[in-house]
């Protein structure tokens, strides 16, 4: 990369960094992990910069990378937990501590399947259309619609369940 391209990349990264970290936080519920995801996504963008520039919408490409990275992390965590049989004590304690600090909405989001969580964030936080969400996730518009509907229903049920427990 020459200095002009480097400057272009730096501008691109600074313009999207905050939104990417927030998206990562919504997906993982962990700020540090969210930063790592955003950094990894932008490193991949740097490595494929000419392809990103050629893409019709570089942001779609970038969000897809973040989603894939977070899916990999979440699945990797699930595999580790299955291998060990139970969550290691330290990890469980840390998770509980994080759960305590997290807003109730983030905790509720973490209970959703990753696909539904992604749809909620892209559709209702990033204000993307159903077609745009489908393009980022690589699925059909109908699938996006059904995932969004299920996610909303789960969030409402989760809210009712929380109220019952508190009573």
């Amino acid at each position, binding site marked *: 990369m020459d200095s002009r391209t480097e400057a272009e990349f730096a501008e691109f990264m600074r313009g999207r960094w905050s939104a990417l970290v927030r998206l990562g936080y919504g997906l993982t519920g962990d700020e540090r992990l969210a930063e790592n995801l955003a950094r990894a996504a932008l490193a991949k963008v740097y490595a494929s910069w000419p392809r990103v520039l050629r893409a019709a919408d570089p942001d779609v490409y970038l969000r897809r990378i973040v989603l894939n990275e977070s899916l990999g992390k979440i699945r990797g965590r699930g595999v580790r937990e299955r291998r060990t049989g139970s969550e290691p004590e330290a990890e469980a304690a840390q998770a509980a501590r994080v759960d305590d600090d997290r807003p109730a909405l*983030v905790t509720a989001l973490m209970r959703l399947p990753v696909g539904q969580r992604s749809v909620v964030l892209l559709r209702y*936080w990033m204000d993307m259309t159903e077609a745009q969400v489908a393009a980022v996730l690589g699925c059909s518009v109908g699938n996006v619609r059904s995932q969004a509907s299920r996610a909303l229903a789960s969030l409402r049920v989760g809210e009712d369940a929380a109220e019952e427990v508190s009573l």
Partner: protein
Amino acid sequence: MSILDEQDLRVQLDAVLDAITPPEAPVSAAARKGKLIQAGRSLGIVAGLAVVAGVGVGIPGLLNQPAQEVSHARPTVMVEQACMSAPRAVRGAAIAPDLITERAEPQSAADSPAGGRPAAATTAGGCAWLKP
């Protein structure tokens, strides 16, 4: 937490996620990692090409090995005089050489490496050797 509808969810998501204040964008760190990814990809391409070249050179060498020489030497059949201790079938063949005369070429006793006599003389029960 209470979510009434989509609009309510939007508002709550904005409130929660906008509260996150990320640090300064790590441009140089991302660029460094990106260069590493590029280098890894280049190495992968070079390794792939090396494997392809190795297969391209090695496989024809393995497939086109020269065939072993086939021996065209004609076989030599020797029939020695059957001694009395030999099996009966062997003795019978020596006594009745007409059974093998179609394929036999009687030669002189001088040519016989074993000192035998020509097949024609075996009617009397002597030695016979055949050299096709």
